[in-house]
């Protein structure tokens, strides 16, 4: 006699419901259901049968479930007693319960010893019914989810066609959808080459291993499942790829297990095929899967028909619509072929990765139409530098690539690169206006690996940019390491604010003749967990490049304003100012205005106490948009300072153009002030200029009392530097700000 808590079966059912409904899909629900039934009823073995099919079983050794005996037990009369064999236990009596309401699914429970009593039978029936519902729900949900995804995918393609998105983009979307919906490893859309109808070219693909990609970019029409689909104009299904007469030995060797291809048409004519394939064995393409592929292939047909003429189509799929140059796909094809030809020779192939300098400001300030014209002129100029056998392509944006075949020395590539740099640098005249752009070029040479060569050239190009633009750089292996290091730093930088690794240091700005505190400049520091304290010079360029500067800049403004408010609240002088640096990239950000306005209002500080510093070099690349943004900032009530004033070559030009309130004299003018009067003239000029324009001047980098005295004598109003105080954390400068310690008029003379 078993003794049980009164609530036993209710409790078991509650657990059971939670177990089968918390899993992700019907298969897991079946497994959880069978196991929980076994646990609840202390069963020796439990099986779930769907019709003739065993869905899941437990209690029999793996692979030894007696399916026939279980089937017989399910089919037998309800009243008869039935047994099934369980190894180690012999024949064990069973109890069964209907799962769901369709009458074809059963839970079969085998238990030695006491037969189940009325409560246990009731519990089993309830669990079986619950399991049926849960599995039905899972199946409905997953079917709905699939259908939903298909509908979304198809409408995505429709939208892309309707919006006349570039064909290669539409084709990529189609290929991606086919791979996703059918759950295959590879998908490709291949088109017959109008120039050579006996071959197929891959117009878009996904999931093809890189080592195979180069070799199957172009294939003969009489090989492969895809070729057969085109030649026979019908769906071809190969569930055992290796055994198919159309299999390509290359893919058989790579272990491809199954493939399926559907023809693609334009106005009734076969022009190519959509192909999916998988490396997983045992995959079967159900009639529903086959219909899906045909449906998606029809979408591809629509997209192609929409662009009307076949030759145009293929040309369009492989060329950049703006410049008419080959696009990335065709460049890859040509590069792969060039590498194949090189295999049998001692010569090499060179890839030049060309990126324009200063294109973005041109595009932003003069508009996209002018930008497009510039790109067309550059494309013509690059093409004009090449031999017949070379290929130039536009990879996208302001990126171009050049392929040089059969070169014997790297010097041939660097010579050509210099020619391209020189010709691109010549002024471009558009609507009577002179536009200047430049080119930075990375070069990689080799005999194999198309993608690899292009990537190496890209890395070298990056180095050329970093080295000062307008030059070419040959790839060196160490660049890969540097790129990785940069990537690492970028990843670390991304989380730096979240991990509270950023801190603002503050440096005092003093009134030179009285020594009184005037304000502070906020300076960013990064407490790197391994590198220690990192100064802005080491990470701001990276932050600018990656756009992280927007978030960092936002944090700096918010933090500085809150700090200023805190000091005001604690009794600091009302006219204490806070100087904050803005980077060039921040000035390009349309959200800058609201960022500043928000920071001011969040902290509730007086607009007049915030001074934003912009370096002179940034102002030199002036655009109408920059001036507009600066005006808008000034309209908020904040003041603008020119940082490093005097280091640019056109200092006076922009003083009229820009709304400026303060000049910060760069430290090179301060440095010689204690050396002798003859070298004071530059500093004198800047101070007088400020005075004539009514702009206060802050002298930077004052380190010695003699410099201090000389600046006072020149009539310079404000200054900062180690002589008055180094940048320090807020807590350290606080006593000085709150008047608890006098401003340091002649403190430490040493930098430590």
């Amino acid at each position, binding site marked *: 006699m078993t003794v049980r808590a009164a609530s036993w079966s209710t409790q078991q059912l509650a657990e*059971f419901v939670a177990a089968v409904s918390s899993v992700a899909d019907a298969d897991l629900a079946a497994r959880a259901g069978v196991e929980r039934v076994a646990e609840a009823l202390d069963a020796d073995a439990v099986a779930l049968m769907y019709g003739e099919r065993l869905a899941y079983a*437990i209690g029999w050794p793996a692979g030894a479930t007696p399916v026939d005996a279980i089937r017989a037990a399910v089919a037998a009369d309800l009243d008869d007693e039935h047994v099934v064999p369980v190894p180690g236990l012999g024949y064990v009596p069973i109890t069964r319960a209907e799962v769901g309401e369709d009458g074809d699914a059963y839970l079969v429970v085998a238990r030695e010893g006491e037969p189940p009593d009325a409560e246990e039978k009731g519990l089993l029936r309830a669990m079986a019914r619950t399991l049926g519902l849960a599995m039905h729900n899972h199946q409905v949900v997953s079917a709905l989810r699939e259908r939903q995804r298909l509908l979304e995918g198809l409408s995505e393609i429709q939208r892309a066609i309707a919006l006349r998105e570039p064909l290669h983009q539409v084709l990529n979307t189609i290929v991606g959808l086919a791979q996703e919906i059918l759950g295959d490893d590879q998908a490709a859309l291949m088109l017959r080459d109008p120039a050579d109808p006996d071959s197929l070219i891959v117009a878009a693909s996904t999931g093809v291993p890189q080592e195979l990609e180069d070799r199957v970019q172009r294939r003969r029409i009489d090989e492969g499942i895809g070729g057969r689909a085109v030649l026979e104009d019908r769906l071809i299904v190969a569930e055992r790829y290796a055994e198919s007469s159309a299999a390509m030995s290359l893919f058989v060797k790579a272990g491809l297990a199954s493939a399926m291809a559907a023809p693609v048409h334009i106005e009734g004519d076969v022009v190519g095929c959509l192909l999916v394939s998988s490396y997983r064995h045992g995959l079967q393409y159900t009639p529903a899967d086959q219909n899906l592929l045909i449906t998606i292939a029809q979408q591809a047909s629509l997209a192609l028909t929409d662009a009307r003429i076949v030759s145009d189509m293929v040309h369009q799929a492989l060329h950049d619509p703006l410049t008419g140059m080959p696009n990335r796909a065709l460049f890859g094809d040509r590069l792969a072929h060039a590498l194949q030809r090189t295999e049998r020779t001692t010569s090499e192939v060179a890839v030049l990765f060309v990126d324009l300098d200063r294109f973005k400001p041109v595009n932003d300030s003069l508009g996209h139409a002018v930008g497009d014209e510039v790109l067309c002129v550059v494309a013509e100029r690059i093409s004009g530098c090449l031999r017949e056998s070379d290929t130039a392509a536009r990879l996208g944006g302001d990126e171009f690539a050049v392929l040089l075949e059969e070169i014997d020395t790297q010097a041939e590539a660097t010579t050509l690169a210099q020619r391209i740099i020189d010709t691109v640098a010549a002024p471009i005249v558009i609507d009577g206006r002179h536009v200047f752009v430049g080119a930075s070029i990375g070069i990689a040479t080799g005999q194999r690996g198309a993608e690899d060569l292009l990537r190496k050239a890209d890395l070298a190009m990056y180095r050329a940019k970093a080295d000062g633009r307008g030059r070419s750089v040959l790839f060196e292996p160490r660049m890969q390491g540097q790129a990785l290091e940069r990537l690492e730093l970028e990843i670390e930088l991304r989380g730096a604010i979240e991990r509270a690794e950023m801190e603002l240091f503050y440096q005092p700005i003093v009134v030179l003749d009285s020594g009184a505190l005037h304000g502070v400049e906020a300076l960013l520091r990064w407490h790197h967990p391994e590198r220690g304290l990192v100064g802005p010079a080491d990470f701001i360029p990276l932050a600018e490049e990656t756009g992280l500067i927007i978030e960092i800049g936002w944090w700096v403004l918010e933090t500085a304003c809150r700090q200023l408010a805190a000091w005001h609240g604690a009794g600091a002088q009302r006219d204490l100012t806070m100087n904050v640096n803005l980077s060039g990239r921040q000035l390009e950000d349309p959200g800058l205005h609201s960022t500043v306005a928000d920071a001011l209002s969040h902290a509730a500080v007086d607009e007049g106490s915030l001074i934003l510093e912009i370096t002179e070099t940034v102002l030199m690349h002036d655009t109408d948009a920059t001036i507009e943004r600066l005006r808008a900032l000034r309209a908020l009530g904040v003041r603008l300072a020119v940082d490093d004033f005097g280091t640019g070559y056109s200092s006076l030009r922009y003083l009229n153009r820009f709304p400026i309130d303060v000049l910060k004299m760069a430290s090179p003018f301060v440095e010689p002030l204690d050396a002798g009067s003859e070298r004071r003239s530059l500093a004198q000029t800047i101070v007088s200029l400020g005075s004539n324009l009514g702009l206060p001047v802050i002298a930077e980098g004052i380190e010695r009392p003699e410099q201090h005295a000389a600046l006072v004598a020149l009539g310079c109003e404000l200054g900062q530097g180690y002589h008055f105080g180094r940048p320090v954390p807020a807590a350290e400068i606080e006593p000085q700000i709150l008047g608890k310690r006098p401003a340091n008029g002649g403190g430490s003379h040493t930098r430590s």
Partner: protein
Amino acid sequence: MSDALRWVGAGRSDSQDSQTAAERAVGDALQGRAAKLVVLFASEALDLQRLVTHAQRLAGDAPLVGCSTAGEIAGGGPGDAGVVALALGGDGFVIATTHVTGLAAAPREAGAEVAAALSEVAGAPHHLLMLLTDGLAGDQQEMVRGAYSVAGAGMPLVGGCAGDDLHMAATHQFFNGEVLQDAVVAVGIGSDAPLGIGVRHGWKAVGEPMLVTASRPNNVDTLDDQPALDVYLERLNAPAEARTDREAFIRFALEHPLGMARRTGEEQVRWIPSADFDSRSLVTSAEVPPGALVRLMVGDTASVLAATDAACADAVTGLAGEQPIGMLVFDCAARRAVLGQDGIATEIERVERYAAGAPLAGFYTYGEIARTRGVAGFHNQTLVVLAIA
């Protein structure tokens, strides 16, 4: 020297030198005989790698399995910071061993994999799998389900989770010369004579049941929709230090497990090895599923010792009239807390009485495995006794 068809030997050492400890414990268990299996249970206080290296040297070609403990058990009573060894040999035994690491990440797969590797012993007239696992690594019931799904109902499972003297930091498993973590070490034992298993705990449910409203494989997050840790501490009127200090909580929770109702009267006990004070959840060594009704469990010396008698009696009864020639004992570390030092001495005396002079070895565990009926083979706060005839 024995030339019997089956023999079992045991030895122990309290030496703090790993080499001496290995030589004494394994040497006494072997007594110069060539074994088919050596089982070793040892405290984390010893240099385990050195211990296992020397033990394997003594075992020769025989496979060596074992794990770290929260106390060791042998004839003569329980001990701490020592080593016990059990060896078995003779033509009447068929032995297979294997191990899998990566238990925490995929407990079900680990269980399935070891069971699949040991299916050869199923051919012997009597057989079982012994599993020694890292109880701090993942849902152990899921591991047992995995083993059961491959081995089937005809293959009993016994064993226990390794301990680390209640530090709850890291436990170790031994396989031949290696010291592993996050592992299941498994032995398939086939025998010409019966193998008997007894499983009892002796705890009783008290108070009203509580509904598990949210849980994960190794955490109970809420009970009756309240943070589980708070409900637990309140219901038990826990002392102040257990509410803030993790060590104090571990000691307190040892004596206050949760119980889940099962078909037969005795609840399945779930031990609370620790708690997450930040998320206010209870940590468990096997899943307490959402939807389950749990009750607080209490035990006293009398009920826990009564369970000892019952488990031993069940194990010996399983031998179908034959005399035991050896015993393995997997005793929950939490039972020590209830019984106290005198109580556990009494408990082992009782076990020895059932062993009737046969060699005896075992350890205090972080979870016990015993599956003779159904799938539910993972226990806590329980005594598992394996009698070998």
